[in-house]
């Protein structure tokens, strides 16, 4: 009979291979990166535009342009655009984040020609019909009114405001910002930002030469260069954090968000700090989960993350805890953060986290799209693939002394902003 109390032998992950992006240049100089992998006849094409010319008096400009891009061109109505994409079983997505506005097309390769023609139309000739802008304003205001009833949404807004003030990272849009949004503002921003000089294209999937030629035909010519633009630039001084409490009558749970401005990917400590973060709150077995969920049962989930943006990095811990446990949960969170500064992580825990992180990294390289995502992480941080070999090497070699030192430097609980929405 087998002895079930003994774990089978195992190995640490050894070979991690990334499919590197190949850099090409379209006829007009637009950078095209190709990640060729996989066996399915499909591609994902991303057109990525930097967010530019941040103006807090027109805070929704970039977001609204991205959202309304597919709502009409001088030749096609919103319905015609949607029908052309949908008919071929393709998916058109517009995504907006703090640093970039993205237009993504997922399509079977056989329909690339037909669907890419629509993408070309919308990124070069969007007209933002007044009626569509009005629908957008109305629907967004309605969505906002629902979100404002959610404690975690309010917590996120208050936290971002505390860290990043009135920059694009910290601004909380309200009804009046939607009311003030005009079609002229949209056209102004569209003409500035959606231009070849501000565009990076990344294609992933089974990408063969004809696909590259098609992309060049659409986006490598007949696209005006446009006007000079100003890249968004912000800097955030370190400061002492405070508590931000928003009481909600009758709340069953309180949303917590705790953290501060931190380092971004290009900083030499970034990978090491990710190891520390994993131990604290970055995986299911983390200290925060083990204590606050699995031992105390105060919450359904708690986690922490280190996020890298173009102009900053930040660190946060987030959870929704039973209102009656709010005070105890805060005490335990502070205790776990401070413990990392005083007690070295045990060899067993460190070995576990190292293996977990290596396995998780290997598992994150699932397909062509994930390899392209890995490329975006380094490219937009101004780094090359050595970042990943360094990352793997850091995980393999980091010591508990180094982690103690990092915690001492980066985890100052008094410097953390502490947002509580609900009851405490």
């Amino acid at each position, binding site marked *: 009979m087998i002895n*079930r109390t003994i774990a089978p032998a195992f190995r640490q992950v050894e070979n991690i291979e990334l499919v590197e992006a190949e850099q090409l240049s379209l006829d007009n100089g637009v950078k095209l990166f190709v990640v060729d992998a996989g066996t399915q006849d499909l591609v994902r094409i991303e057109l990525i535009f930097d967010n530019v010319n941040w103006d807090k008096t027109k805070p929704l400009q970039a977001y609204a342009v991205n959202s309304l891009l597919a709502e009409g061109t001088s030749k096609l109505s919103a319905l015609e655009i949607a029908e052309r994409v949908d008919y071929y079983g393709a998916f058109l997505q517009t995504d907006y984040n703090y640093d970039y506005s993205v237009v993504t097309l997922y399509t079977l390769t056989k329909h690339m020609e037909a669907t890419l023609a629509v993408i070309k139309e919308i990124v070069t000739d969007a007209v933002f019909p007044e009626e569509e802008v009005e629908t957008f304003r109305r629907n967004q205001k309605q969505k906002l009114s629902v979100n404002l009833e959610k404690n975690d949404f309010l917590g996120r807004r208050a936290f971002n405001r505390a860290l990043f003030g009135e920059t694009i990272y910290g601004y909380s849009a309200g009804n009046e910002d939607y009311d003030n949004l005009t079609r002229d503002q949209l056209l102004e921003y569209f003409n500035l930002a959606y231009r070849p000089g501000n565009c990076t294209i990344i294609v992933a999937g089974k990408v063969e030469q004809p696909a590259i030629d098609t992309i060049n035909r659409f986006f490598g010519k007949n696209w005006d260069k446009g006007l000079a633009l100003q890249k968004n630039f912000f800097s955030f001084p370190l400061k002492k954090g405070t508590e931000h409490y928003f009481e909600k009558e009758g709340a069953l749970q309180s949303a917590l968000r705790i953290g501060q401005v931190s380092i971004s990917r290009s900083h030499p400590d970034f990978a090491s700090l990710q190891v520390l973060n994993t131990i604290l709150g970055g995986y299911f077995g983390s200290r925060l989960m083990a204590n606050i969920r699995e031992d105390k049962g105060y919450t359904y989930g708690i986690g922490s993350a280190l996020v890298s943006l173009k102009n900053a990095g930040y660190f946060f811990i987030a959870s929704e805890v039973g209102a009656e446990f709010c005070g105890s949960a805060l005490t335990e969170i502070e205790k776990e953060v401070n413990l990392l500064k005083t007690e070295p992580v045990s060899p067993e825990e460190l070995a576990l986290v190292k293996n977990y992180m290596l396995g998780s990294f290997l598992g994150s390289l699932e397909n062509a799209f994930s390899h392209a995502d890995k490329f975006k992480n380094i490219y937009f941080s101004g780094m090359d693939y050595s970042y990943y070999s360094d990352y793997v090497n850091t995980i393999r070699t980091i010591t508990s002394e180094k982690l103690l030192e990092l915690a001492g430097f980066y985890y100052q609980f008094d410097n953390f902003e502490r947002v509580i929405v609900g009851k405490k």
Partner: protein
Amino acid sequence: MVTFNRFVLSNGLKVLVHEDYTTPMAVVNVLYDVGARDEDPEKTGFAHLFEHLMFGGSVNIPSYDEPLQRVGGENNAFTSNDITNYYITLPAVNLETAFWLESDRMLSLAFSEKSLDVQRNVVSEEFKQRYLNQPYGDVWLKFRPLIYKEHPYRWATIGKDLSHIEQATIEDVKAFFARHYNPSNAILVVGGAVNTEDVKALAEKWFEPIEGKAKPPRNLPVEPVQTEARREIIRADVPLNAIYIAFHMPGRTDQGYYEADLISDILSRGNSSRLHISLIKEQKLFSEVNAYMTGSDDPGLFVIDGKLTEGVDIETAEKAIWAELEKLKTELVPEDELTKVKNKIESLMVFSEMSLLDKAMNLAFFELMGNAADLNNETQKYLLLSADDIKRRAGNLFRRENSSTLLYLSN
């Protein structure tokens, strides 16, 4: 095309292997044929609570998560009204660790009181986070009992009420395990950089010694045919009025399921869909509107929900929804529109083959429904449907006496 090999162990455990060497990873998916529909009406939410307890240590291994993380693995699970599904992703070289962990918890649990105490709290917090502390969060807790009168789909997976979870005892846990967590009630799928012979050897080593028991019988009450329209109004502190309409529809393996699925795509998949164009863009009655199915094994629901534009009255909004449904009942869907929704299905199927975990879960799910090979015939079933099929199905679904309407109104 998702290829696989299949064998059955002497204790009744079905094993499927999907070899895919494009990845260095492996996935181990264990589906148990038990869900919230198998619960005692006085002890609802139990299948899901039980899922949490499956991570509280097994008979020979005190911690489930730790040894898995130590070999670079990750795992999770979910419970629905029909099934409970557990999955692991790990480097394929460490595959045996997954067999060791999964087989031990199929053999027996630790049945720790501490784990039960804590997970009761965790699930209570999950209940609050998802259903009680969110605007419109409780809608399905209230809507299900209006739609189902007999069938256990009348309660949500999380349970009818927090008190059911709070009252769960260790005896309940033991009885549930003994009844449902048997090899003959499970399907194991292993996928990724693995070969069938190795998987077979591992399965025989770790799973075959587990004692086989008969598959527990399932005798669920059949939901009586609904004969008149039902309606309920809830008032709550929410910012917008919302409307939910549910229709009874055929179960997952019926042809009617595929017809209804295409109808839901015609109505609300993508920005060229009918409800989006008509109700949001043209008539401006709604700020969001969706059509979808619960997709359950036993006869499920076709649902339309939407949030009304401020100032629009409920009656107007409701009429506008029905006008779109009437159109499907009386007019044939144009050829182009039908091709459009079929093309979407076809491309979704190709995209879903990019994810190893999705493939493994799909194989397990289709095996449960009868035969994993049907996964590869799925697209074909949609492509065969005609505009007449759609019209007939719409006529069958969208009848007043087959509808339940819930108005969720702002105080």
